[in-house]
């Protein structure tokens, strides 16, 4: 077990013949036998790192039994690629690409929901269940992606690199690492990912990495209250001034409730082990009994 992807996942890449697609394909072929192929319209019949390329997702699904898609196409093509994947029967989708207009994200997200499909992103570093499957950019060659019982939920890719190292150095491994993304509207929110971790028997503790802006992490409190596993949290941006975009479109402090300090206080009040800086995460995990 793990969340959203595991040994039974069969992963394809939409946009596999592009620059980014090839980078991901090389790495995934090296580490995961359940990465099975890819799609680029007009490039059917080619191979990328030994994996077959098809013209469309429907053919790839029937030929490869694919159920999970990594979509790396450019922003203007993202919505169409997601719709195609959903209509072809794909059940889990990761959208890597950033700069997707939010109106298009809304349509993608609502169509996925209607079809019972899990959508992760856009503008996200994706998901990995170490040793089982990867639909993400977290790189096994430069990150200690060890199997274990900690679930990691993060808005930011770059921040998760740091924390993965800190947690691994403290001797823990991961059930699943999910980077939900930094956009204002996300296929999978903090709440939904937290609920998935709650129901995953393999996950014994959750580390949540949030950031300033929005109410996503606060909304997750409802789920956390019903959980019988400990949650450690860090909200990035104690140093962030109000009304400034911090790189992620979602990370703008708009009021008093969405500052890092306010969110941290609310999480603490709900029994979450919330820390002020990432270097405090390992000692919090070590204090816990799981």
């Amino acid at each position: 077990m793990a969340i959203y992807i595991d040994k039974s996942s069969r992963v394809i890449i939409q946009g596999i013949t592009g620059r980014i697609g090839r980078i991901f394909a090389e790495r995934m072929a090296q580490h995961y036998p359940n990465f099975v192929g890819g799609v680029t319209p007009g490039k059917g019949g080619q191979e990328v790192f030994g994996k077959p390329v098809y013209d469309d997702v429907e053919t790839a699904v029937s030929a490869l039994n694919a159920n999970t898609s990594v979509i790396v196409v450019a922003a203007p093509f993202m919505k169409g690629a997601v719709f195609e994947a959903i209509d072809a029967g794909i059940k889990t989708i990761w959208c890597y690409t950033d700069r997707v207009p939010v109106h298009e994200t809304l349509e993608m997200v609502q169509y996925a929901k209607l079809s019972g499909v899990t959508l992760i992103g856009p503008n996200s570093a994706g998901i990995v269940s170490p040793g089982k499957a990867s639909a993400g950019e977290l790189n096994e060659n430069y990150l200690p992606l060890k199997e274990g019982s900690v679930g990691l939920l993060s808005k930011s890719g770059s921040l998760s690199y740091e924390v993965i190292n800190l947690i691994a150095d403290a001797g823990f491994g991961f059930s699943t690492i999910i980077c939900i993304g930094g956009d204002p509207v996300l296929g999978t929110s903090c709440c939904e990912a937290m609920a998935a971790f709650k129901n995953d028997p393999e996950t014994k503790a959750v580390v949540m990495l949030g950031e300033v802006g929005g109410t996503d992490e606060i909304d997750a409190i409802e789920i956390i209250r019903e959980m019988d596993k400990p949650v450690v949290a860090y909200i990035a941006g104690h140093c962030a001034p109000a009304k400034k975009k911090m790189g992620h479109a979602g990370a703008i402090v708009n009021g008093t409730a969405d500052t890092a300090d306010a969110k941290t206080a609310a999480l603490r009040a709900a029994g979450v082990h919330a820390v002020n800086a990432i270097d405090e995460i390992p000692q919090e995990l070590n204090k816990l009994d799981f």
Partner: protein
Amino acid sequence: MNLFEYQGKALFASHGVRVPQSVLVSSPDEVPQLEKGGVVKPQIQIGGRGKAGAIRMCENAEEARELVSYFLKTPVKGHLARKVLIEERVEIAREYYFSISIDRRSKAIAMMFSGFGGVEIENNADKIKTVTVNPLIGLQPYMVRNLLAPFELDSRDQIAEVVEKLFALFMEKKMNLLEVNPLVVTAAGEAVALDAKVILDDWVAAESDKDAGENTASQTPFEELFASVGANAVEMDGDVAVYAGGAGAAMASGDCIISRGGTLRCLVDRGTIASDTSDDELSLELAGVIRTILDLKPKVIFLNVYFQAGRMDYESRTLKRAFGDVDRTVPVVARLAGRMAEEGRRNLEDTGIFVTDSLETAVDKIMEYLKEEA
């Protein structure tokens, strides 16, 4: 990207929504004859303009000219107008509030309406009716009825028509926010948008009109420069300049310093500046970034880069060149990790930069430098 009021109103008018007749001027000489007086509104992007004294009545052209020349010289809440809108006076019978926005929680579009418009909206937040619209089905007549149902309205049909037209505009332009406060009904029973606040999606706006407005958050020249090369920067007034690979990593690096009692001069997310090439263009862009950081005269510079896609050996070589070009007295702490990081750290060995692979060691060293300074 925020639009100015006059730009938002031009969009409203183009979709058949009535706005006051107006003239836009950028000098007092451009003020026309005003037999019936008017309303003078400097075009600045702040909330609560009325309370801040930035919406003023005038009786004639002479008064208007005086107000225009005042507003072109005098900042309001730190914002100086480049243009001033002079509008006809509208006889207001009732004031309402209407907005359309993206609702992160329901992942849908939210319409809000209130019978308490204008400055009253803040005190009557509980009297707002919200209707969410699933983008897959779009606006349906029952949604407009539900939105307006709780309110006693004399001109229900006229208001419903405005709601429909503005919703169509919101969808067509793929807006992030459209707000009308107040939406008024005149003594003659006509619905008029007296104000317009519009935020366009940066990723949509990028494709069309870049010069139409200003950024959502007002930027300093320092921040603008970074935005132009695909990086993100935020300027502050403390001691440590943070340069990191990624938005989350930048904030987390800053928080490590803050949690130990330090302060920040700036946060730079190096963003999408290419990192998988070793060409000279990259080093020029990075050199510019580094020079700009040095210009802020921070007490310490913290380079925290953890690449897994980009190559640390290239990054370090360009950083070395960028720092080599300048006369530097400020201490620099570089924490380099990830792909080709060992080679990256070796590249910086003879530069006088403190190099480490550990975040903890880096933060310790920064605090040490800050103590020496003090």
